[in-house]
Structures are given as structure tokens and as C-alpha cells.
């Protein structure tokens, strides 16, 4: 049998990835894609273990003039999606597949790539269809599928895109931050929740039929016709997390949680469904939540058995990216930083455009979970990175503090809408806490010029600047958002000569974009983002933490805008560790506690927008400027390394274009040495 070779069709069989023929640039936006004849050229990935069906659908799609890629294995498809981000507009997947459940794939895709997913199955029972929709599928087709049905799948792509854009508008720029504060935050949160909506929902394994919907309230601003749901704001989630903490994860039952939370209007069902998500999140982190300390190994342990550490981070980062929380560059940088080693897979998998796009759309909160996940790699990397930092020494806490102080403020100031992820190592945590506290003060004020970071430079780092960190030059900030001065932040990056600190700070709309750190120091795990602690925990508490994800959202509008600032202190941390040992001790307990909480908090955000600094950040830097121009960054993790400031600065410029993409959300300030 001769396979008809079609120029626009690529078939991937297990183990072989054919090149993705992306006819357009990234994204599925007709304008962006540049298709004159949209929907023709829509890039579809079909996943079905039944090769007969696969071939038939491929042919049908081809006749619809779509760009078809087929895959008979879900795992292969997922890898393909990861490797070629931005290469696909929509995914068609069978429900019953031997290597991976269709719903699981749906969940992954929604989480990592935020693409519309259409389920297919011969099972046309209402319950099955409902399950598909509940998992977040955009549509559910019953086999045998007719060509007419496939002709219209483009609507899902557009709808999703427009909804996301609308949410983006909601989130708006910095100026709108305040407005976001109230309901809007909810809206955004909800909207981001929605948009990943399809994807996010996919995450929830709704095996529990009795669980009502997401239990999330949709803000009226959202144009979808979904029924009202409870919006799990940062505060609400924090309350949830502290309730769970109080009860103990094992004993946390919705009823008791509800009682502890004591939130009027919240129902047991809301809590139950949120708890389910939360558990899923925790599970995904594979035990991070359980770890209090000594996370290095544990945390590093891949959460998902199938996912390597790198992959995991990748996953998370992608998820974050997908959720549009963090600018790719930031993520990339952070991630790379965290991993302390080439996150080759990660980077490669993420295509800048896609990420950018996601980020642009996103401005959603960054699920802490992602931050956490991210942190994990950091932890691991920590050890690797340690040696790098030997030389860097933290002269003193004060120094660091000051360094931090200056730095954060800048970051915060500039960040604005974007979320920043900064990973901090545990050791630095202590110091960081001090710093943060200081920071906090500073945060509230204008963004200060970052002083040449003594801290940064000294310890070599609190923050390791990823070579690929995306430094947001002032100009970019302007372009990015309303005035956020991401740029300023970036400039600050310079201050650290020796240490490269890549802080991709993406602050979600909040003007505060307070680093979680600040929050953290407040013991603010309760901060909305509250994450810092969380992330620190894994790494921070126990040992030189690889990274701490600070959720910058805390200050941000309290609601969803979770900007997670993950300080990739990974590199630096090692350096700090030795010096801070004494301090660390004192903080440990606190940290742990905070972290725990933070972590949980972060975890809770799972589905909401995660920021993963990593890939993106790295990506950003890694790629030559030219790449940036195209908006496609391929990060070669292997190349992640410290780079001199000068270079970085230059890169900064490059970064601008990229940042540009994000406009409203993100400000990635990358501090590089």
C-alpha cells in the first residue's frame, strides 16, 4: 500500500517526529498566522491509536485544506506538541488509547500548551460526552466522523483565541491594575481560569461525578456562557490552603475545610472540587508538598513518574507559559537557572512564539504549583550549581538585603503586569527574607533604581542570572505595557557584575508586583501569591534552595494576577549557603512553615496561570537576537550559562521585541550579570 505523500501532511509514528509544517507564524490567530484563506492551513494534530480512523480523518482534514499531522500514540503526540510549540492550532484526540488516556492528554495539552482539544470517540453516550466537556474538551465528536464536522473545527481555535484576548484586555495594563483589584481580578482570575479554561478543566480528572462543576464563578465580564462559578482568588485559596494545612492534607475533607474557611456563600461542592484540583496539583508535584525540607532530592524527584526533572520543569514552565503568565524569556531563564543545567528539552520544546503568545494572552495568575514545580528543578540544580557559586560569597545579609532591596523594587516596579519568577535558593531564603521585608517596603514605593547590586554581585548570587534571562529594557517596558518599567528592572540587572541574575519578573498587573519575597518575608505566605514561601520551601528550607518561586501576585491585585516571581537563585544560592548557614537556621522553621503554606498556596493555584520563568527566560537569551525578531526562540539549554553583563545588556535589547509580544502582561526583568 502506498502512502500518498501529501505535502502538507506529516505523519509521526512512534519515535519519529516529522517536521512540523507550520505554515504560519506562531499562533492560531488568522492575522498572526497570515493565512489569507483561513481556516485553510489550520494546523491540526490528530491522535488516535486506530490507524484506520487516523488515516480517514487525515484525509478528511486534508480535504478541508488543513495542515495535518497524525500520531498514533498519545505520548508521542505530547512530545511533539512540546517540541513544536506553536506549531499546532488544534488537537484532535481519541478518548480511548492504550498508552495514555485521552483525557490525560487533554489535560496535559490544556495545561502546557493551552490549545483547543477536540475529543473523538465511538462512544456517544451522553455521560461520555459530558465527561469530555468537563475535562475541558472544546468539542466531542462521535465516530464515525463526517467531513462536515471536521470542516468547522477552526471555530474552536478562533473562539479560544478571542476569549483569551478578551481576557487579556480585561487584565489590561498596569493602569488597569487597580481596577483589577476588585472584581476584575476575579474576572481575570476566572478568565484565566477559563481560558486555560478548556485546558484547565481538562486537568481536573473528573472521575468524581458528583463533583459539581469547577465550582468557580465566572465573572460577568467574561463573555462565555458558562454558569457562574466561584472564583478562587488568591486570598480565598490561601484560606483554603491554611485550612487544609490545619487539618492535615490527609484529613482535609471538604466539609471541614469549608467550616474552617468560614466563607459565606462558599459551598461544600466548591471546596470539594477545588480540593480535587489541589490534590491533583500536589500529586503532580509528586510529593513536593510532603517535603518540608531536604527537598533537594525529593523535590528534585520528578513529580510525574514519567517526567524527568527537566521535563517536569518543562511541563510546568510550559504550563506557565501556556497560561501566559510568564514571558517565555523569563520562564526560560528561570527555568534554566533553576535547573542549573541545560534544560535542553525544555527550551527546545518551547517555542518562543507560542510562549509569547501564551503569555500575551495570559496575564493570568500563575499557579503556584507551577512555580513550585519549577522550584523543584531548582532544588536539584542547586547541587549542581553549588560549585558555581563557591566563589560568590555573600558578604552579609545586609548586603544582600540591600542588594535585594534595590533589586526587588526595581523588579517590582517594572514588572507591573507581568509576572516574574524568581527562584531563590533556600539558603538565600533567610537572607532573602530579610531582604524581602525590606523589599516590601520598597515595593510599595516607586520602583527604585536598583543599586548596583552588591548582593547580587557578591554572593554571586542570590540570583543567578541566566544568560538567557530576559532583560527588559526600559524601552520594552514601554512597549510592553503601560508603562511598566520592566526595563528599569532589567537595567538593574546590570548591577550585578558577577552574578547573573535572571529575574524574569512578570508581574501581573499589579503595580506592586511585589516579589513574593516580600511577601514571604511577611510570612506572607498568605500573600495571594503567597508563593514565595511555597517555593522556597522545597528548596529553601532544607538546603540551598534552588529556587523559590515568589508569587508576585500578592500585591498585585489580590486576585488572580499571580505573578510569580521566582528567583532563580539557584546559582547563587550555593554561594550563599555557606555564609548564611547561621541565619538559615533561624529561619528554617519559619521558612518551612511559610514555605509550606506558600507552597500549598502555590499549589493551589495550579490551574491558574503558572509562570514558569524558565524556559522562556533562557530561551530569550539563548537565542540570538535574530531569533527574537522572529519571535521564535529556541532555547538551547545546554547553552545556558552565565554571561557577562555586557552581553546581557545587549540581549536585553533583543528581548525587547519579545517583551513586546507580551504587552500587557509581562514584564520580564531579567537581571543578568
Amino acid at each position, binding site marked *: 500500500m502506498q502512502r500518498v505523500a*501529501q505535502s502538507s501532511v506529516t505523519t509521526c509514528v512512534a519515535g519519529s517526529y516529522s517536521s512540523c509544517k507550520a505554515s504560519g507564524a506562531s499562533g492560531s490567530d488568522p492575522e498572526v498566522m497570515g493565512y489569507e484563506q483561513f481556516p485553510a492551513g489550520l494546523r491540526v494534530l490528530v491522535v488516535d491509536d486506530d490507524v484506520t480512523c487516523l488515516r*480517514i480523518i487525515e484525509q478528511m482534514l486534508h480535504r478541508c485544506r488543513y495542515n495535518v499531522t497524525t500520531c498514533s500514540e498519545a505520548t508521542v503526540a505530547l512530545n511533539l506538541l512540546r517540541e513544536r510549540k506553536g506549531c499546532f492550532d488544534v488537537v484532535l484526540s481519541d478518548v480511548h488509547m492504550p498508552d495514555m488516556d485521552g483525557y490525560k492528554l487533554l489535560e496535559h495539552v490544556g495545561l502546557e500548551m493551552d490549545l483547543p482539544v477536540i475529543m473523538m470517540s465511538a462512544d456517544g453516550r451522553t455521560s461520555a460526552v459530558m465527561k469530555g466537556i468537563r475535562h475541558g474538551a472544546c468539542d466531542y465528536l462521535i465516530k*464515525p466522523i463526517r467531513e462536515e464536522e471536521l470542516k468547522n473545527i477552526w471555530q474552536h481555535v478562533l473562539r479560544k483565541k478571542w476569549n483569551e484576548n478578551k481576557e487579556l484586555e480585561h487584565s489590561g495594563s498596569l493602569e488597569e491594575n487597580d481596577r483589577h483589584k476588585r472584581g476584575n481580578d476575579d474576572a481575570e482570575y476566572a478568565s484565566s481560569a477559563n481560558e486555560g479554561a478548556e485546558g484547565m478543566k481538562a486537568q481536573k480528572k473528573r472521575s468524581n461525578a458528583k463533583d459539581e462543576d469547577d465550582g468557580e464563578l465566572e465573572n460577568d465580564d467574561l463573555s462565555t456562557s458558562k454558569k457562574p462559578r466561584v472564583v478562587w482568588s488568591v486570598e480565598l485559596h490561601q484560606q483554603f490552603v491554611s485550612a487544609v494545612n490545619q487539618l492535615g492534607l490527609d484529613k482535609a475533607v471538604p466539609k471541614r475545610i469549608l467550616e474552617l474557611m468560614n466563607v459565606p456563600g462558599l459551598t461544600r461542592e466548591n471546596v470539594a472540587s477545588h480540593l480535587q484540583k489541589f490534590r491533583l496539583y500536589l500529586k503532580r508535584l509528586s510529593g513536593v508538598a510532603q517535603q518540608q525540607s531536604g527537598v533537594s532530592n525529593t523535590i528534585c524527584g520528578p513529580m510525574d513518574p514519567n517526567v524527568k526533572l527537566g521535563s517536569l520543569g518543562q511541563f510546568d514552565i510550559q504550563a506557565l507559559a501556556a497560561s501566559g503568565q510568564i514571558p517565555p524569556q523569563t520562564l526560560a531563564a528561570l527555568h534554566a537557572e533553576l535547573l542549573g543545567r541545560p534544560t535542553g528539552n525544555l527550551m527546545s520544546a518551547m517555542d518562543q512564539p507560542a510562549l509569547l503568545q501564551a503569555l500575551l494572552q495570559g496575564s493570568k495568575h500563575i499557579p503556584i504549583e507551577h512555580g513550585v514545580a519549577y522550584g523543584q528543578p531548582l532544588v536539584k540544580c542547586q547541587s549542581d550549581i553549588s560549585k558555581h557559586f563557591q566563589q560568590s560569597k555573600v558578604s552579609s545579609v545586609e548586603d544582600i538585603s540591600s542588594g535585594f532591596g534595590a533589586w526587588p523594587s526595581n523588579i517590582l516596579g517594572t514588572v507591573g503586569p507581568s509576572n516574574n519568577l524568581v527562584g531563590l535558593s533556600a539558603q538565600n531564603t533567610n537572607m532573602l527574607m530579610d531582604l524581602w521585608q525590606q523589599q516590601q517596603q520598597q515595593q510599595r514605593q516607586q520602583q527604585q533604581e536598583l543599586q548596583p547590586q552588591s548582593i547580587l554581585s557578591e554572593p554571586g548570587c542570590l540570583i543567578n542570572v541566566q544568560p538567557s534571562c530576559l532583560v527588559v529594557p526600559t524601552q520594552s517596558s514601554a512597549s510592553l505595557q503601560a508603562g511598566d518599567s520592566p526595563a528599569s528592572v532589567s537595567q538593574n540587572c546590570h548591577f550585578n557584575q558577577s552574578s547573573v541574575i535572571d529575574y524574569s519578573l512578570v508581574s501581573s498587573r499589579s503595580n506592586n508586583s511585589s516579589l513574593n519575597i516580600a511577601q514571604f518575608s511577611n510570612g506572607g505566605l498568605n500573600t495571594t501569591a503567597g508563593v514565595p514561601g511555597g517555593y522556597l520551601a522545597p528548596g529553601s528550607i532544607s538546603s540551598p534552595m534552588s529556587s523559590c518561586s515568589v508569587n508576585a501576585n500578592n500585591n498585585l491585585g489580590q486576585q488572580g494576577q499571580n505573578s510569580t516571581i521566582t528567583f532563580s537563585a539557584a546559582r547563587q544560592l550555593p554561594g550563599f549557603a555557606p555564609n548564611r548557614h547561621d541565619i538559615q537556621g533561624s529561619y528554617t522553621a519559619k521558612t518551612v512553615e511559610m514555605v509550606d503554606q506558600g507552597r500549598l498556596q502555590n499549589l493551589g493555584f495550579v490551574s491558574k496561570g503558572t509562570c514558569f520563568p524558565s524556559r522562556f527566560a533562557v530561551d530569550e537569551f539563548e537565542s540570538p537576537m535574530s531569533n527574537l525578531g522572529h519571535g521564535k526562540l529556541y532555547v538551547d539549554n545546554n547553552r545556558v550559562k552565565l554571561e557577562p553583563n555586557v552581553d546581557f545588556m545587549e540581549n536585553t535589547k533583543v528581548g525587547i521585541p519579545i517583551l513586546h509580544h507580551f504587552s500587557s502582561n509581562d514584564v520580564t526583568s531579567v537581571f543578568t550579570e
Partner: protein
Amino acid sequence: MEVGQLQRRLVDYTKSLLTEGILDDQFSQLQKLQDESNPGFLVEVVSLFFEDSEKLLNDITRALDQQGVDFKTVDAYVHQLKGSSASVGALKLKNACVAFRSFCEEQSMEGCLRSLQEVKQEYYNVKNKVETLFKMEKQIVAAGGSVPKTE
């Protein structure tokens, strides 16, 4: 036979298969999918189907041959076969699969074995008929004609 005759025979034959319920409209759809850029599409798909089905039938047979039969596994195979049958339009075969599945649910060994026989029968039947159909098409093409599309 001249082309016109061959073509008429083909059309009639196809119609009869549809009437008997061996094939359904889905098959006609597939025929329509075939176009100039994809001339061997139908043959390709059907061949894929045959290959896949035979493998599945073997799997099912083996699964039923086990000491402790796992009906869930059997059901999964049958579900798959059902899906592909539906995709190519093998109606009777698909229906046989549906019946088979209910026996799997009941966990009735006897019912399953019987169903397996029926499924196999239907499979070979449709395989036969479709292969005959393709032969007719080949003859037409060989005689210089084009395969008529079924309405």
C-alpha cells in the same frame, strides 16, 4: 466486458452491499473522499482496516483463551474493532461488535465465544465483498474507464 457494463456492475454491486447492510453510508463517504490527489485512498484505508482488524481478532481470541479471562481487556479490543468498523462503514461487523461488548459486560464466557465467531464471520464477509469491489474497480480502470462514484 466493456467499460460501461463493468461500471454498471460495480454500481449495482455497491448498492447491494449497502442494502444488505454490509456497508453503510460511511463507506460511500470514504469513496467520495478519494480524489485525484489521493487516488489510492480507499484501498489504503481499507487495507489498513483489514490489517488492524485481523490483529485485533487475534488479540481477542487469545484473550478469551486465557485461564482467567480479563473481560475488560477483551472489551477494549472489541471497542477498538467497533470503532474502526464504524469508520470504514462495515455496518454488520460493527453491530456484531456491539453485541459482543454486551457479553463482555455480562462477563459471559459463552456469550463472548459465540460473539467472537459472529464477529469473525462478519469480518470475513465484509472483507470478501470489499475485495471483490476493488477487483471490479481494477477491471474498470484496466479497461480504460473510471470508477463511478456511488450516489
